[in-house]
């Protein structure tokens, strides 16, 4: 693993225990091994971007971090508590530290934008309706959306859906934010706007961020460190500038957007 001792994390956290420690994570679905012994430390306050080809196991890995999928073997330790061994009650408690944004937003289509963002607040806090409304507006302002509170989910464009998804993810002021392919399927301008929102959140909120993407441009904009997953294993972890200089052939093909001769993932 190629990790720089002087990784460009915004807050020096080397001596602190990692926010999330992933230890030897294995997972297979119907006999097919998707994760094959992933170990990775995610430090408090950093923005880690995980890149990799389609079918490399990125989404499965991200879902392990929040306990949506249980590993066959290995541990996910969040602030010292093992999510993989936790029972449902503890798991729900640990999940409250997280906010997660899904690929297509995963907004509740039976609710309007306001109710979507207010949902976690109503569910987990005793805030008054006035405070909830204020918090919803604040979250929408953070993602540069105004006047959409009363729109229904099907009235929103792809980019707006993602941003409402972000707003919902940050509503409870989580310590850790997870982004699942935040700008896949968006045009370059909208994708850049989404990246800008993520960077602003990174800079303005006291959060640890993990983003998965296969868009290298986006990864460079968002990341403090970039990790490459290939065939269910971590191929490399490095700060963006260093990552671009890595000599691994697969990484170079990935960066250049060229076909790789022995790419089984695409076929799988």
């Amino acid at each position, binding site marked *: 693993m190629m990790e720089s001792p002087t990784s460009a994390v915004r807050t020096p956290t080397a001596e602190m225990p990692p926010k999330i420690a992933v230890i030897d994570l294995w997972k297979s679905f119907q006999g097919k091994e998707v994760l094959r012994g992933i170990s990775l430390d995610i430090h408090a306050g950093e923005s880690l971007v995980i890149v990799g080809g389609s079918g490399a196991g990125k989404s499965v890995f991200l879902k392990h971090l*929040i306990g949506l999928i249980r590993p066959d073997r290995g541990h996910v330790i969040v602030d010292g508590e093992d999510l993989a061994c936790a029972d449902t009650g503890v798991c729900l408690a640990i999940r409250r530290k997280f*906010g997660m944004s899904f690929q297509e937003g995963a907004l509740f*289509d039976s609710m309007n934008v306001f109710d979507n963002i207010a949902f976690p607040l109503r569910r987990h806090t005793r805030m008054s309706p006035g405070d909830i409304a204020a918090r919803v507006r604040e979250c929408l302002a953070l993602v540069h959306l105004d006047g959409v509170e009363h729109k229904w989910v099907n009235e929103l464009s792809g980019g707006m859906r993602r941003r409402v998804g972000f707003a919902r993810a940050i509503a409870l002021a989580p310590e850790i934010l997870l982004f699942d392919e935040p700008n896949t399927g968006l045009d370059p301008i909208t994708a850049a706007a989404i990246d800008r929102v993520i960077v602003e959140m990174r800079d303005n909120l006291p959060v640890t961020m993990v983003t998965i993407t296969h868009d290298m441009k986006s990864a460079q904009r968002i990341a403090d460190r970039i990790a490459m997953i290939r065939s269910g294993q971590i191929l490399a972890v490095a700060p963006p500038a260093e990552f671009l200089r890595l000599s691994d052939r697969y990484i170079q093909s990935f960066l250049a957007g060229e076909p790789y001769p022995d790419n089984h993932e695409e076929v799988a």
Partner: protein
Amino acid sequence: MSEATERRRPIAALEWVGERSTHAFEEIGRFFTMLYLTLYWSVRPPFDLRQWVRQMVRVGVDSIPVVGLTAMFTGMVMALQTYRGFERFHAESFVASVVSLSLTRELAPVLAALMIAGRIGSSLAAELGTMRVTEQIDALSAMAVEPVQYLVVPRVAATTLMLPPLVALADGIGIAGGFAVAVGLMDANPVVYWEKTFQFLDLNDVFSGLIKAGVFGLILSVTGCSKGYHTTGGAEGVGRSTTAAVVMASLVILLSDFFLTKILF
């Protein structure tokens, strides 16, 4: 055909049987796991009363027309058929008793449950299935909200609680339908018909029908939710789950009807 293919044939058949059995056991396991989780989460706070009421309106109030029409025409046909049959050995006076007994004990609960399986079981599977494939269920989990508690418990509770009153209503409408046909078309004496309707009808007949209705409600809603909850494979998967939910729920309703009748009567 080569010798190797000939030899492989019985193995393939065994594989097919094995695969099907595994699948069947998997389905049964999922049903009981969902039932267990629903019961487990239904007694734990927070209790989402607004969701319960919304689902009860959807299952109960909104189903009144379809269940009412089914019951009315069943009662009418029952009266028509039995009248024609009983006329042959001059037992027309028993038509009312036959209609009321068969409706309360059997027809109203089973037919109402089958109609609700089509109307609600399918929509539960489609709704939860769509939520599954669009990651809305994952989003609930990610927000530290237990999906079974938030989505499944109110739906199962509403269906189980609303089927008995629906069936009680169906009993009444069915009997009224029978009365209308017998009196209006067959010239039966209204006073005698009305008297005969209740002459052999026990309160136990009505209650056992209502108990059946509750059990059917539980079965069809858990089946619908379980099918939807475990949907995979996008829009096509949602379609598959919806069909499977209705077919499975209908079959299990008819199957359990026999055993319930055996136990309750």
